[in-house]
């Protein structure tokens, strides 16, 4: 479904991605793990078009998408949940969700909202509250829900558990699983490698802008190198 071929991305003179190859298949959860500055977030930003690759190709459902602007990529069916949630704190929960459906025709909102509220009952309760008054976990749910409002085929998640209490993070991971079971493909970036690998089908390990390992999640969990470097054992 998604294929990154030999992607290079730079911030000015600094090369953040040095020729990476990633493939995500339909209905999969794929996770990227790695230390700080390994290029995980940059990878997501490059896919969603906010950063442009300097070299390489990104192919989504047979179409090249590496040189089209971010809003057209959202229209094609890739939604990103940016790092740090980035909800609109002064708009209400409902307004935030409506903004998520910006690329969709108007009656789409009515159609998809019930499904969103079924997946995230807490957002239904908080519908009229402004986004900034939600707790961290609720804000993360809102950010995910907002991305889903665009009816993506592929969801890019950047650090969904960042700054959340373990029990709340667990809830978020459960929801990600649920969304995936409903047919949305997920590409996940996580610091919490253990949780991410338990959730994902396959995983990539990144180091300083390169992919150093690519395995199914089970194998990565049992790999002694990965255990030592990322699972703290």
């Amino acid at each position, binding site marked *: 479904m998604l294929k990154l071929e030999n992607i290079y991305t730079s911030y000015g003179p600094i090369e953040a991605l040095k020729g990476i190859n990633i493939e995500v298949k339909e209905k999969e959860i794929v996770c990227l793990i790695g230390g700080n500055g390994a290029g995980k977030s940059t990878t997501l930003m490059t896919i969603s078009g906010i950063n442009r690759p300097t070299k390489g190709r990104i192919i989504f459902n047979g179409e090249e998408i590496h040189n089209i602007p971010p809003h057209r990529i959202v229209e094609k069916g890739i939604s990103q*949940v940016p790092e740090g949630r980035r909800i609109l704190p002064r708009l209400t929960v409902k307004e935030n969700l409506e903004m998520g459906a910006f690329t969709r025709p108007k009656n789409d909102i009515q159609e998809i909202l019930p499904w969103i509220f079924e997946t995230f009952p807490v957002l239904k309760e908080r519908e009229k509250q402004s986004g900034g008054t939600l707790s961290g976990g609720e804000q993360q749910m809102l950010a995910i829900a907002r991305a889903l409002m665009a009816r993506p085929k592929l969801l890019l998640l950047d650090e969904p558990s960042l700054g959340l209490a373990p029990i709340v993070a667990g809830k978020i991971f459960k929801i990600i699983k649920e969304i995936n079971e409903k047919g949305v493909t997920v590409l996940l970036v996580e610091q919490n490698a253990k949780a991410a690998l338990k959730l994902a089908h396959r995983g990539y390990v990144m180091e300083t802008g390169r992919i150093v390992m690519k395995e199914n999640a089970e194998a990565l969990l049992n790999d002694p190198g990965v255990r030592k470097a990322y699972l703290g054992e």
Partner: protein
Amino acid sequence: MKKFLRIFLLSLWFGAITFPFTGIRDAILLSISITVLLILWIPINKGFIRKERIDLAFKKINEWFRLKTQKRILTLFFILFLLVLPLFMNNYFIDVTTLTGIYIILALGLNVVVGLAGLLNLGFVAFYALGAYSYAILSTQAGISFWGSLPIGILLVAISGVLLGFPALRLRGDYLAIVTLGFGEMVRLVLNNWDSVTKGPNGILNIAPPEVGSFAFREPIHYYYLILFFVILTTLAIKRINNSKVGRAWVAIREDEVAAEAMGIDTIRMKLFAFSFGAMWAGLGGVFFAAKMRFVSPESFTFFESVIILCMVILGGMGSIAGVILGAMILVILPEALRGFENYRMLALGAGLILIMVFKPEGILGGPRRRAELRPDDEKTLMQEMETIKR
């Protein structure tokens, strides 16, 4: 005792800054009167006028205005009032009100750019000038009527908004402000120096008044009704776009540009659109200004005008249409009303602005959203929490 010393020093400082304008005797008198006033203020400040009370009063007024039926009745009465108003006024007052109308249109236009899309534009007067000069030149050189020039002028200004926006919108915040400021000055200097087309500092004379059939707009009252029509048109158009998908997109861009991009908003196009859509109304105001004054010269379009229009937007409450209208009214009518103060006119105006900004930083009718931006509640709650920890 420390308080009294502070008051004394404050008065001294005030005397010192007014001294160059007022002479030594008046400056001393002013210092003494300010000392007395501030000493009287202490007990008032302690019990009588509390900030919370002012906030509460404003909140109640705001709530009342927000109710739908009240709003409709009020709008109706207001428009009726405006329709019969000039019948009871002399020409001077009608002229002041007409001027207010022009500034309301300008401020509403700038509000789209600054208040909704969050792009600080310090050269807004350039669009006003372009509108005014396009009618002045079309009328005197080509003999095109007011109604013919109006769409041409507005279109020209909208295009110039896109042209300025294209390079400028790569910049953010302060940098954008400086570029727009430069643009404003550039336009004024070109008008001042391009003698063959703009007649330079002499300006363009004998601009034709608007006509409808054989009826020509000559009396102040004619212009009054024309500007009233334009103000209502502008208000309705901006209100509509404010509540549309486009308006939402602007708000999203203002709040968080990366998030807006991730949601599939074409941020560059939306910003460009905000820029030229806001400029359009300045163009309309400009064309009307030229027709009303029947004379344009570069000195009507100085940087100070841009600042005043921005003040109207901030004073009334960024993003709020009613607030911006009120802000424009205050800033045009107040200097006129303060003519009794003569030399101190601008001083009194400045003091008034500072007071409003101290007590209502989000503007007179600024919404709760704007207020949250300026005084984050989270921080307040956090600080309250910290207090409890300490004890």
